[in-house]
């Protein structure tokens, strides 16, 4: 399909741990269309993070290929792979992973300084609702605020794809809803392709497409013609 932006072909990932082999992913093929909002669900240990890491160029598959805009990541050398992470991907971590020595603004600058055409810093901060928290250090912010900084950091690079590994995992219900709403809004306003991992099946309803994983395999792919807005999700 012409508007495929990022996808995998028969990707497997095997972790060798001493004598034991752990098959984290098994022949996973998935395509993300440009501008899509994808939700990945599945039980713990089913390979969600592994898949996201491989998509984000942070880990390499044991076999199979990752295709971005028609090119296989396997063809990229180390510096091209870094460029890929730098320019094409935004990553949001479950535990925020902000740099404690830097303020909210500076954590975002950390990303904007890297790329040629970042989004306007103030605009992004406003978008995530942190205009008045710009000069706070992470230790002076709540978990939700920190996660919003992390999202701002990922988003400010103006990446083609935003990958979020359980962005609401550590947040309370209401804050989680707000974050999800924010991600959906960004997806709509900037046309950023978004993939989020969640444990929560209720969240699945808000995606354009839902991938269900079990034991390293995609066991179900479901198109969602009428995604539920975040604020109407209940769990």
């Amino acid at each position: 399909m012409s508007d495929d932006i990022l996808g995998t072909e028969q990707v497997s990932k095997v972790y060798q741990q001493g004598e034991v082999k752990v098959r984290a992913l098994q022949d996973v093929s998935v395509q993300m269309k440009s501008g899509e909002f994808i939700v990945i669900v599945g039980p713990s240990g089913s390979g969600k993070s592994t898949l996201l890491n491989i998509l984000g160029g942070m880990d390499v598959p044991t076999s199979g290929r990752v295709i971005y805009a028609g090119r296989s990541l396997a063809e990229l050398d180390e510096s091209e792979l870094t460029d890929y992470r730098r320019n094409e991907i935004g990553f949001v971590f479950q535990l925020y992973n902000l740099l404690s020595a830097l303020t909210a603004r500076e954590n975002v600058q950390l990303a904007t300084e890297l790329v040629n055409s970042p989004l306007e810093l103030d605009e992004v901060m406003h978008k995530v609702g942190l205009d008045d928290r710009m000069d706070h250090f992470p230790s002076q912010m709540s978990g939700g605020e920190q996660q919003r900084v992390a999202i701002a950091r990922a988003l400010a690079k103006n990446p083609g794809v935003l990958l979020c590994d359980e962005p609401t995992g550590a947040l309370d219900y209401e804050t989680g809803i707000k974050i999800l709403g924010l991600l959906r809004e960004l997806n709509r306003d900037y046309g950023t392709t978004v993939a989020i991992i969640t444990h929560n099946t209720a969240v699945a309803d808000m995606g354009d497409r839902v991938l269900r994983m079990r034991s390293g395999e995609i066991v179900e792919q479901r198109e969602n013609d009428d995604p539920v807005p975040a604020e109407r999700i209940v769990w």
Partner: protein
Amino acid sequence: MRSLDRRLLRTAAESKLQIMAVVVIITLALISLVVLTNVYENLNQSLLDYYERQSFAHLFAELTPQPPEYVEGLSSLREIEQAEGRVVADVRMDVGRDIYPELHLVGLPQDGLLNRPQIVEGSPPTRGEVALLTGFAEANGLQVGDEVDLIVRGEAISVEVSATASSPEFLYPVTDIQQIFAPDQKNRGIALADMGFAADILGKSGQINEASFTVAEGYSQQDAEDAVEDAMEGHGLLRVLTRDDQVSNYSVMLRMEQMEDLSHSVPVVFLAIAAVIIYMLLLRMVESDRPTIGVLKATGYTDREVLLHYLKYALAMGGAGAVLGMGIGHLLVRPVAEFVFLQFFDMPFLHVQLNWALIAVGGALTLVFCGGTGLLAARGVLRIVPADAMRPPAPPAGKRNLLEVYLPRLWDGLTFFTRLSLRQLFRNKKRFVLAVLGVAFAYTLVVLPFYLLGIVDAIAFEQYEEFEVYDYALIFDQPASESAISELRREADIGIMEPMIQYPFTVSKGWREESVPVRALPEGASLQRFENERGQRVSIPSSGILVCEYMAGALGVEPGDRIRMSSQATDEREYTVEVREVIRQTIGSVMYTSHETMQKMTGQGDAYTGALVQSPDDLRYRLREVGNIGLIMSVQQILEGFGEMMGVVIALCSILVILGGVFAFAILFNVATVGITERVREFSSMRVLGYDSKAVYRIVLHENVLATALGLLLGAPLGHMTIVAVIEAFQRTEMLYMPVPFHPVSHLFATALVCAFVAVVMGAVWFRIKNIDLLEALSARMT
């Protein structure tokens, strides 16, 4: 990378103490580099210029009295450029005190070319006048124009002080190697006089008894020495001395060498220590920044950028230290150079020229040490992958350790905490090895200055309290008979007096040849004792000879070997003598034999050149009027000189002990705290499980006690080997033969000091562990 740089500054604030310590050490390194090198180079240049300008001779020959023309004729030798005769004698001077200071009188020819003194004040001495070396004049409050008496063979001769002066021959105002550490400017002086006048008052009118030479271009000192020996052997030559063996020059050069060695080693030692701390600092930073590094990489920062981020710490510290150090260093060069000049050398100060190339050297050294270790420590970031941002640091694989596998019985017998500590230790061998090495290194740093003290102590006190147990050594102007000596003894009411015969000899074995004084003592001599290399007492053998360690090495002889000996005193006849024992001797090189053996060689029976004396009285005072005594050497006085110097050495060593202690402490502290920081999360989990701080502390304590014990075991031989290497490389010459010391006390002190450091460090660790914030540790994912 502005945000990253900002992070750099802010995180640096967390380690500001360590960073400051590193900067200070690097600053010291560069100060020492700039100051020591510049001072050394300038001193050396000034010295060479001065020698050149005053035509310091390359070769000195002691002769039986000869006409001056005899020496002048020697300038026709190819190897010799200039030759000049002179008159030298040891006399005394009445300066109005009860003791007559010894005076080394040098009569130089009018318009002489060699060894020209530089007049500081006054005019060159003519008949009836002397010029005094500044130090002696000042020590005795003598001024130009003063009248003093020379005491020559018991007679007083009135002279006027015409000038104070410096001389290339006596930059360091000593005439005998025994005084090398303790020049006594008050009781031993040097005077210059007109040659004719000096010869007259010494009763050697129209004659000379020494010659000095400069070497012609294209020939070495050795060539010239051989030529002079060939030409003069059997024609009145007593002894030849090269410039290298001339006592003042030897002392000056010894100090120069020491300074040069220091200028090379001190900055490197400082930098190495800084490097060790940087290494530990960065290693810890990278380890605890693992998730951050993952984030940076996931965000798109390249390996190079991340590496550079950490490298910048090292470079910034190095840069700050380098700029500070070189700045301060350059300001200090002139005052330090002037101080050293005035302190050590009786020589007009010449010039200071800064060596700007040092800035490049200093910069490069700092870059290599700081950048190199920075790179080494930070290269860990390369192993960290972006996905690490999402994973807690992988717990190191749990494994059964060696002890468990091979000695299960022993393992089962250990207490739970010991087992827990051992597991930790086996799991992180690198950290444990670092701790052991830290202790060993700290130990070496601390034990060295203690050793140094011990060595100086050994040199002086071993020689003069163990071996040369007489109070005075008398050297006669003319050989005296046994009856004359007995009479002297009776008259001066001296307790024990042992006559000796001492002449310079040429000693050879195969192709190896050395010049060395040989001293003959009575067989049952009690005033001088000997010890062989194994520490056993040895006495003067009736036949054969005792050879000191240095000469044994230089000639390649062992007990039982036979050596050939000849001397002007034997009319150059050669004798073969058996080496009986190799004996210990720290200052100077002398061989010992019996009266009988010596008399057989010289063919002279009842003629002694001096005597060793034991007497509680001040013989310098009592014997001051006795005619035939040229020199009275007081052991007491030498020891006092040493005592004074020991004060300086103790002060110096105390500084070294403190410095070594600071470094040792810094190393131990860092190793221990790195160990804690790495494990805060683990410890806090234990705390959450219900262990108290004490239990956690016990684990760390166990580890550190073990590391300290092993470190001390390793440090003892390491320290010993270091000092032995230093001694063997630098401190063994004909004049000074440093013993390889073994000082259990040094090791005891060092052990105690290191243990005390460890105790303080463990105290600090206790506070760190007690204050582990459970919440902070458990939410440590936030970096």
